[in-house]
């Protein structure tokens, strides 16, 4: 029962594989750098969030409309409702009531603000996606910011953060048309399973490179959201 392995052959097979790998990577349009450069996320300052909130409330004017477009484009989730104002009803009462009032007042006011004045209020864009913690994510959620779930469609269908849309990073090409329906000035929060995954970071970087300049990565992701008992929904009947 001797194995009688020829280690020269093994070394040869490994060497050929390595040569093929490097050659293919060099010529492939999907080639990647040999040494990955780690992009470290910096945490979003609360002051940035608060100022972003101001922008968000303006953007919520467009959000419902944007989400309706998404609904039309994503045929696999036809039963979803995206009306932001209705969703506030299901948030914790102590925090959302103020938000509703603020938002509705703001929305009414915003319609009367001239366009150039609105532009003057806009904060400078971020230079990179920013990481946010649970507390910050909740604030942004309450402000009606769009959350994008970067997990697999199956995970999303099972359960996701209420009102979030799905843009699975591993099927980005199939789903990227969703981005056409979004306003590039609107803030977006990306999330995935939690600290175990980095899909939200990758998606955040991709969105940022695509021109979305207000990207927040919810680092704790789905796991932390669920543990905190925050609003979720499922597409499974």
């Amino acid at each position, binding site marked *: 029962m001797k194995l*009688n392995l020829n280690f020269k052959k093994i070394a040869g097979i490994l060497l050929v*594989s390595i040569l093929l*790998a490097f050659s293919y*990577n060099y010529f492939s349009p999907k080639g990647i750098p040999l040494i990955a450069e780690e992009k470290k996320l910096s945490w979003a300052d609360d002051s940035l969030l608060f100022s972003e909130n101001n922008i968000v409330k303006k953007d919520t004017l467009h959000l419902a409309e944007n989400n309706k477009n998404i609904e039309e484009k994503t045929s696999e989730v036809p039963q979803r409702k995206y009306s932001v104002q209705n969703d506030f009803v299901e948030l914790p009462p102590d925090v959302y009531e103020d938000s509703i009032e603020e938002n509705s007042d703001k929305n009414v006011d915003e319609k009367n603000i001239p366009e150039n004045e609105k532009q003057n209020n806009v904060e400078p864009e971020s230079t990179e996606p920013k990481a946010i913690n649970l507390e910050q994510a909740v604030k942004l959620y309450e402000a009606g910011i769009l959350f994008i779930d970067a997990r697999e469609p*199956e995970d999303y269908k099972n359960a996701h953060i209420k009102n979030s849309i799905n843009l699975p*990073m*591993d099927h980005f090409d199939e789903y990227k048309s969703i981005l056409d329906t979004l306003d590039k000035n609107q803030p977006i929060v990306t999330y995935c399973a939690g600290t*175990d*995954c980095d899909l939200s970071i990758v998606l955040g970087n991709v969105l940022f490179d695509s021109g979305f300049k207000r990207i927040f990565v919810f680092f704790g992701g789905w796991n932390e959201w669920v543990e905190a008992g925050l609003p979720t929904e499922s597409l499974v009947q």
Partner: protein
Amino acid sequence: MIKFFNNKYLLLISRLILGFIFLYAGMEKISDPEGFARSINNYKLLPYSAINIIALILPWIEVTAGLLLLFGIAAKENAFILSSLLVIFLIAIGISLFRGLNIDCGCFGTASGAKVGILKLVENILLIIPGLHLMIFGSGDITLSKD
């Protein structure tokens, strides 16, 4: 018993199973190296700087060894390489399970979306069986080359 395991058709079946599975898995990973690199990174077992190199080389080892195994060329050696990979995968999945990670296994690149779990451990253990079979008995008579 030895005669049964040395049967040329049984050896061919082992080669086809192991060869096709690794050929498919390798090609899926080659088609999306970035996605596969992300899958490796999710295991949090390797330094970040090493991830891309592993993501590039590993699928080509799978494809080369899988293809050679299908043709019965250097079957023992290729079975040894693929079985070694399976043992490495077993360890990686085992550690991830122990650490409670809820991640995609990346076993077939990003194509399957399967999570690490007991099922993946069992799959890997089952695949080691034809690997050991071929390592011990070689490619059999139905082959392009003699071991």
